[in-house]
């Protein structure tokens, strides 16, 4: 599904709508160039999930963990410095007990998990406007209607 997002507030809003679809164990792969709005989207997601602490760029530390209201965790990963998907394991993430959001999730991550939600954010010629392409992969997402995000 393709969406046009006009402002950073709308990007946060998309994140909070996304929160309603997600449950512990889910993996979200975010892609888009520097400044595309990946952290903004995650911030909206975090706020809606009741994440403890401020959602910030995980680049420096590779992964940030936030407790969320439901009792699990939101794990926010920057995969840019990871050479391959399997290195995610070194971060010792409790995938089953977390919602994991991975920024800079390049192609290699697509083969890593059976189920994931992919969010691709593209800049447009307009500085503010973004094109967002959402797609869900795997049995987890069968029958889930992404149109709710619109």
């Amino acid at each position: 599904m393709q969406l046009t997002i006009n402002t950073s507030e709308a990007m946060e809003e998309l994140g909070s709508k996304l929160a309603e679809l997600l449950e512990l164990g889910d993996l979200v792969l975010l892609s888009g160039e520097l400044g595309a709005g990946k952290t903004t989207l995650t911030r909206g997601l975090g706020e809606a999930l009741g994440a403890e602490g401020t959602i910030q760029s995980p680049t420096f530390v590779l992964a940030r963990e936030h407790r969320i209201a439901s009792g699990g965790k939101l794990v926010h990963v920057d995969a840019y410095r990871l050479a391959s998907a399997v290195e995610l394991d070194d971060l010792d993430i409790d995938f089953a007990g977390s919602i994991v959001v991975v920024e800079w999730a390049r192609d290699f991550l697509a083969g890593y998990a059976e189920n994931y939600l992919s969010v691709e954010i593209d800049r447009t010629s307009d500085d503010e406007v973004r094109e967002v392409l959402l797609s869900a992969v795997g049995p987890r997402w069968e029958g889930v209607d992404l149109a709710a995000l619109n």
Partner: protein
Amino acid sequence: MQLRALSIDDLPQVMDLERRLFQNEAWLEQTMTAEIASAQTHYVGAFDGSLLGYAGLKVSGPSYSSDVQTVGVEPESQGIGIGRTLMNELIAFAKRQGSEEVFLEVKAGNESAIALYLSLGFEQIDVRKRYYQPSGEDALVMRMPISQPVVLGIESTCDETGVGIVRGNRLLANALHSSMDEHAKYGGVVPEVAARAHLEAISPTLDAALAEAGIGYQDIDAIAVANGPGLSGALMVGIGAAKGLAIALDKPIYAVNHLVGHVGADVLERGAVEVPTIALLVSGGHTSLLLVRDLLNDTQLLGETIDDAAGEAFDKVARVLGLPYPGGPQIDKIAAEGDPKAIRFPRGLTLPKDLEKHKYNFSFSGLKTAVARHVEKLEDAGQEYSKPDVAASFREAVIDVLLTKSLWACEEFGVKRLLLGGGVVANARLRQEAERRCQEAGIELRIPRFSLCTDNGAMIAALGSQLIMDSREPSGLDFGAESTLPVTTVQTA
């Protein structure tokens, strides 16, 4: 009977009793006013409807001592323990403030007071001839030692393994092992590299701290450890070690907040915590602006970065300019030859539309993108450009936002003190600008020495020590690593 701190409102009652007790030796009202109002003093009164007695103490942080300024009890209420109650309160306060000794003067002929002080643990150390005027009576100088806890603190939140030892508010040792060099080739801290380095460094760093302090394990009264915020794998090494030590020594353990530790570090410079203060903590992993009204009870997060930390922005811009990691010192170096006004880069979250929600938050992501676009555009056009100008202009934008927001906070909350902490204080331009702007605004600037600003174990020990002096219960043995521990949680139970 009720014991409480005195305020200026109590002045008429206090002066009335003061004049009745001391007559022609009584303090002037203006002296008493200044004493009660001073931030360095603690005046308490015992009330039972009216004022039965009062006492005051002055704390000297730098000399780790306190002086009893005055003690007075209503004549008809003497001999029923009011003086002792007041003195115990002053001694407890002195202890909480990190004093290692309390001094007082007493009239040589005041036998009942001398007996009280002796029973509290004071000893006569001197006589001052004809001290009291106009009576010409001698004063005995008495001293009471206060034993402060020796606390060993462990820091392993990021890439520095720190072990510090303090006694009360006094720094005894600050040993550090850094793995920063190992992270250079990765362009940022790698949690796994940091955690491995912590495990290798922990025992040698413990040994180094004990040697520096000149004490043995048997002298340690308590263990403190930073259990967040930070990298969980790294934190877990420090936590494992701290718990092992606590069990081996059979001593209490305090799990403390790393960021509050940064604020508390200044206690090791001044011997006391000076509040209220605005604190700006800036490092590779953090950019936080705090309002600290009371280190242990009232620390509030005003804002922090909503995307990249300031140090991270330096690293990323350094990468854009083809400079190595860590970016801060590299950018500083070439910026020295650049014009900070050459390019007007954006100041994140300072526009009127941002102020409602983000007055004290920071954003460096847009700035970083602006620098990258600026450079790429020129490179694509095959144009020469001045890296020093880009570096200087970028640095100026970061510093401008950091200090502007810090001073806004000082103004809005009426706080006349700004404390800087974190590795970014190594940046000379930041310090220089902070000094200039604080001076202009009439704000006292506090920057602890560099080894107490960067991540270190001494600040963790100092915060643990503060908790003990405040009679806090130790943490349980089952706390874990809290990678996003909020600043309002000073201690994990």
